[in-house]
């Protein structure tokens, strides 16, 4: 492939990404027109998207497979729930959940980044299940297997600046939309920054990065903490949406959701987990119309993805759809 086509292809790619982004933005802003169920569903999609983008920073851009991301999601969610049950301030709950998850990820990450590959995956799993067992057993604080219920969706208040009531689902939806967008944008900036490039070079060749005098562990820890913050924010946003926190969000099977979303949309791309998160819920909605066996269908999809479509949706678009479009543009160009 010569340089010129590569150039047009990337330009086309950028334009297409911009167009898709704009269309998505309009669609997301218009969602509240479709009623409470669609709002609730889309909010869940957005939260999973943020959760998965955070996971993907670790997986695709740092080369670490974490199987314990549910722990930070749950810490974010439970801390947010406890704050909201005590003080009716949405901002305080969200910020509290975010920070708690970040601190937990910093401490646990410090221990986990000593290993890579299967040992890293097993360590994150062990710490994740530790958090799950605490939530499961510490009944007086966490409600045990009942979880925390009746969490108020408190108003968004900054004294003297603004006060927005959040009882209406569409208002809370816009709040989720803004925070998820900010979170994903922040991770996008990280991926594009020198820090992001360092992470990717660690993924590609750990020893070369070590030779150039950088502390591999330190950068891995930074990535782990950012991923933990994203999970925590996602968890904190989830709790006021359903007005409850359940221990299921701390179990290891929940850690698999961002993994599946990432694979569905496409690993090793930035947009993959976002596309995957939306597809995850869309497929679920379609499947439950026809069968009560959503888990089996999801399992079959996962097996098929691994065996046949490892690149996910985004890479199919990049590899097959874009060259097609680029060729057509070249043809018209020649005719002129």
């Amino acid at each position, binding site marked *: 492939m010569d340089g010129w086509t590569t150039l047009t292809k990337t330009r086309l790619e950028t334009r297409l990404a911009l167009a898709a982004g704009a269309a998505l933005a309009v669609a997301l802003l218009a969602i509240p027109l479709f009623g409470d169920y669609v709002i609730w569903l889309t909010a869940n999609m957005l939260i999973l998207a943020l959760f998965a983008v955070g996971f993907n920073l670790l*997986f695709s851009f740092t080369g670490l*497979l974490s*199987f314990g991301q549910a722990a930070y999601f749950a810490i974010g969610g439970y801390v947010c729930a406890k704050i909201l049950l005590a003080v009716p301030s949405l901002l305080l709950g969200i910020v509290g959940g975010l920070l708690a998850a970040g601190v937990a990820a910093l401490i646990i990450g410090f*221990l986990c980044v*000593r*290993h890579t*590959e*299967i*040992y890293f*995956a*097993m*360590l994150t*799993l*062990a*710490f994740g*299940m*530790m958090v799950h*067992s*605490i939530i*499961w*057993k*510490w009944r007086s604080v966490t409600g045990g297997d009942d979880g925390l219920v009746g969490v108020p969706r408190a108003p968004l208040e900054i004294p003297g600046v603004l006060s927005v009531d959040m009882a209406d689902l569409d208002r809370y939806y816009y709040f989720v939309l803004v925070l998820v967008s900010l979170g994903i944008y922040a991770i996008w900036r990280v991926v594009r920054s020198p820090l992001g490039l360092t992470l990717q070079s660690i993924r590609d060749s750990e020893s070369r990065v070590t030779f150039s005098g950088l502390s591999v562990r330190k950068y891995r820890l930074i990535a782990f903490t950012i991923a933990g913050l994203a999970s925590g924010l996602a968890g904190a946003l989830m709790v006021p949406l359903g007005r409850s926190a359940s221990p299921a969000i701390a*179990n*290891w*099977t929940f850690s*698999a959701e961002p*993994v*599946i979303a990432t*694979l569905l949309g496409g*690993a090793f791309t930035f947009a993959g987990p976002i596309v995957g998160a939306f597809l995850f819920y869309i497929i679920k909605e379609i499947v439950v119309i026809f069968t009560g*066996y*959503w*888990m*089996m269908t*999801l*399992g*079959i*999809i*996962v*097996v098929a*993805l*691994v*065996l046949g479509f*490892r690149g996910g949706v985004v890479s199919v678009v990049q590899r097959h759809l874009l060259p097609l479009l680029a060729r057509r543009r070249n043809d018209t160009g020649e005719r002129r």
Partner: protein
Amino acid sequence: MTFDALVYQGLIGVSLAMYLWLLAAGLTIAFGVLGVVNFAHGSLYMLGGYFAFTYYLTLEINFWLSLLLAALSGAAIGSIMERFFLRYIYHLDLAYQILLTFGFVLIFADAARIFWGGIPLIPPMPEVFDSTVRIVGRPFPVYNLFVIFVGIAASALLWLLLDKTSWGETVRASASDREMAGALGVNIPRLFTVVFSFAAMLAAFSGALGTPVRAMTPGIGTSVIIDVFIVTVIGGLGNLPGAFVGALIIGLMKAYGVLLFPDADLFMTYLIMALVLLFRPKGLLGGR
């Protein structure tokens, strides 16, 4: 804790350890030879339990034969998993192997719900075992003694199979150097299918052995697999004697933990797993 409670719970712990040991042995052999981390190993345990339930209670087959048939059914499912699915992903990243086997966790859980429903199932105890013996002045269920006996017998058989037969030699050779074994004429793809279905058989047998005393639910696969991971990590991934020690530690931990620190027993097992990974990643019996 009094002396009789100490002995009693100790025996309970050892019988718990035997289920874990059979499971962990399968996971360890599959990991050692194929290099695959099978998240569906716990689900094969669950299927083994359900199969035994159906053979024994619904089809009214003799208890011993039910155990055997359940184990063989697990082996059949394992061979299908390896031959038609796992075989195509050995060259891929660890993440894809984990995901593929996780796909099977989901499929098996719903399949169990379709065929056996969501209610926990426990068949009645076979009459031979429906009694107790007095140990240190307390009635101890005969079935738990039977489980301990089966576990030890299985260890002996496993050791004979892997250490004293030529098949075992082939398996060990392939575990230590797959390419060299292949170059020396070992049919590696076929060996992989056989080893994986053997591992699946051990899991299914463990589940079948547990049916009269441990309730089967469609969700049990996801909780059992975590216990098995803890056991194999403590022993060192791919280390068979280590897995036995790991199973004993976790079995005893669970039995005594219920009495000593009922609120922290789960936490403690995960803590041991994390500590071993941090300080002895190759396991308690492995080198540094």
